[in-house]
């Protein structure tokens, strides 16, 4: 059974998720990871895998690299498999080890009222879209939501978020193009508190993690949120595009330093991209994936389940 929203949000119960919704996502994930699955099983020829054969190990290594798992995490997985001695079913064993690297299923910390979620990432990963969908999901789970448009840089970013706010029936705090993003964050937190909202989600401008002035700006946004509300931001989500290669590690590292990232939202998994960089990020930085985006539809933003993901990545 895939992880449900209620579990992610730490609710006792929530709106019943239809079997269709749950199977739907797993099916979709399988479908989207299908190429990788074929690649892996094809590469591995898991049934005939011979632990005594150097070439078989090499093929396994290549398959993982091909999935963007990265050199270091791949080496670790191989080391663990070798240490097992008796492998049994290779696909099964590999999925277990990948799930282990990914860590325990995470929760989204939204228990405080209001809770503040800060959303950060490089340009074009899907921050605004992810926020729009998350807002709708939170709304379905009986939270009133406010969206703060602290992306005051990209042309029409505010308009884009406002459209999502309307769709999700969320409250909205915006600012003119070029305004100070920290001031917008301030207003959003204040408004969420004054109007009694449960969750405030703050969108920020996409920025490359190498631009230290923009990263400093982000750190300021975070400081302002911290100073307005004890314990906030309760979550800082880094949105990572699943097509990203090993640069995803640098993103996680540097956004972590500036903004104190608490989790990753892995988007665009509906392509043939495997999103293996999430394994690298979890292994090298210990940062959990909390959400995955597997399509354009509203229900395609899902809680992340390490076992599902690992199984879909390896064996389908």
């Amino acid at each position: 059974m895939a992880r449900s929203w209620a579990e992610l949000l730490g609710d006792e119960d929530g709106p019943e998720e239809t079997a269709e919704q749950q199977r739907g996502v797993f099916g979709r994930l399988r479908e989207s990871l299908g190429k990788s699955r074929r690649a892996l099983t094809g590469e591995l020829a898991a049934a005939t895998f011979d632990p005594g054969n150097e070439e078989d190990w090499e093929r396994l290594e290549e398959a993982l690299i091909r999935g963007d798992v990265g050199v270091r995490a791949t080496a670790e997985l191989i080391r663990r498999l070798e240490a097992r001695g008796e492998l049994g079913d290779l696909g099964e064993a590999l999925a277990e080890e990948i799930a282990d690297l990914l860590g325990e299923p995470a929760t989204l910390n939204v228990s405080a009222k209001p809770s503040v979620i800060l959303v950060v990432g490089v340009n074009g990963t899907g921050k605004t879209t992810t926020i729009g969908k998350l807002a709708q999901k939170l709304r379905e789970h009986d939270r009133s939501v406010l969206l703060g448009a602290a992306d005051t840089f990209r042309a029409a970013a505010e308009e884009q978020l406002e459209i999502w706010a309307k769709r999700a029936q969320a409250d909205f705090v915006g600012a003119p193009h070029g305004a100070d993003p920290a001031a917008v964050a301030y207003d959003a937190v204040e408004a969420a508190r004054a109007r009694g909202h449960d969750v405030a989600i703050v969108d920020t401008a996409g920025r490359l993690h190498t631009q230290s002035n923009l990263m400093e700006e982000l750190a300021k946004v975070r400081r302002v949120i911290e100073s307005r509300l004890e314990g906030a931001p309760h979550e800082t989500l880094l949105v990572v595009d699943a097509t990203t290669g090993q640069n995803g590690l640098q993103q996680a590292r540097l956004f972590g330093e500036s903004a104190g990232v608490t989790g990753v939202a892995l988007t665009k998994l509906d392509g043939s991209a495997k999103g293996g960089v999430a394994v690298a990020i979890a292994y090298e930085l210990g940062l959990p994936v909390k959400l995955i985006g597997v399509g354009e539809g509203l229900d395609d933003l899902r809680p992340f389940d390490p076992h599902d993901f690992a199984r879909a990545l390896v064996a389908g």
Partner: protein
Amino acid sequence: MFDTLSDKLQATLGDLRGKGRLDDEQISKAMREIRLALLEADVNFQVVKDFVAQVRERATGQDVLKSLTPGQQVVKIVHEELTALMGSGGSRLAFGKPPTVILMAGLQGSGKTTTSAKLALHLRKAGKNPALVAADLQRPAAIDQLEQLGRQIQIPVYRKDTQDPVEVVKYALQAATSAGNDVVIVDTAGRLHVDEALMDELVRVRDAAKPMNVLLVLDAMTGQEAVNVAEAFQERVAFDGVVLTKLDGDARGGAALSVRQVTGKPIKYVSVGEKLDQLEEFHPDRMASRILGMGDVLTLIEKAEAAVEEDEQEAMEARMRSGQFTFDDFLSAQKMLKRMGPIQGVLKMIPGLGNQLKDVDIDERQLARVEAIVLSMTPQERRMPHLINGSRRQRIAAGSGQTIQDVNKLLTARKQMEKMMKQMGKGKMPTLPQQMTKAGRR
């Protein structure tokens, strides 16, 4: 974290300068390092395999040049091969009977809309009269975004309220023809290459637009998936070239090599910043250096040249030679540095230095704080720093929001700097002030 490949090879092969040929064992070791370096740079794994085999063949039995270490020798071969691979094929756009249509395609978030505007600006600078077409009807507010960008650079944006991008294109072509635009750049919706319906739509847009150039916009951070993306777009819309975006980050950009190798299509432009004039032509040798993590002297030199206006530079040099370094000089030096981009990035481009500096965190915030201190001085104080006494220091500290100690440190640093200038003026090699090298260490 990015040890340069040449340093790694140096460590693996040792210093066998001028001691004959590369033997098999050395070459095997070197090839392992090269393979890892390319994989970490996100070059597609099959491309890596083929490439390494090719390089191995070339390296086998080569004499080690007297001037090079074996490591450098191998790097030289790899660099040459990479450059050759990425370099062949034209990088120019094709122009025909006006209006020449350029169709932009790519995944969501690769940077199509911004790149469209950048390309329009670039072409206008080259004497064209371009127009933009807002054919992304999928993403909320995408049209607004393009219109705002168009306003910034005063280039017309054609749009039409419809659900069908083909209609937008048809209308825009008419409008462009009657307005006398000789180039039309069509921004399309981002789409996944596995999304059949949207890929079909793209084909219809292409058929209606009849572009002379179809450009695939590709994020430099793309991983192993780049090959699948490129192949799918190649098959459906047969693109003519690639625009590689977000190269101002620290991604090594191995996707560039993969796509070139798999589709044979050249990279035509690279996008190196968020500002609309930050679109550059593609230089294969620089890309090769970048993928190998080797620094990039050429780009550095060019950046420096562009950043410093000549008379400004001469004036500064003259003052430096005379051993003067006032806070005004300090401000203009800082301005020049800033124009060259993030300092860490600039330093990384200097081969050899990138590795030395890997633990040194050049803190640009520190520079900003220093600038604040200088800006809190009066013009007179900037010209004549010796005037700055205790009460002035207090005022400057308060004005810049820094402590008196910070102000003192800066005053000392300037003195050291001036001393250094004097030494240089006398033709001696200066020793770097302690503070400068120490301050940034984590």
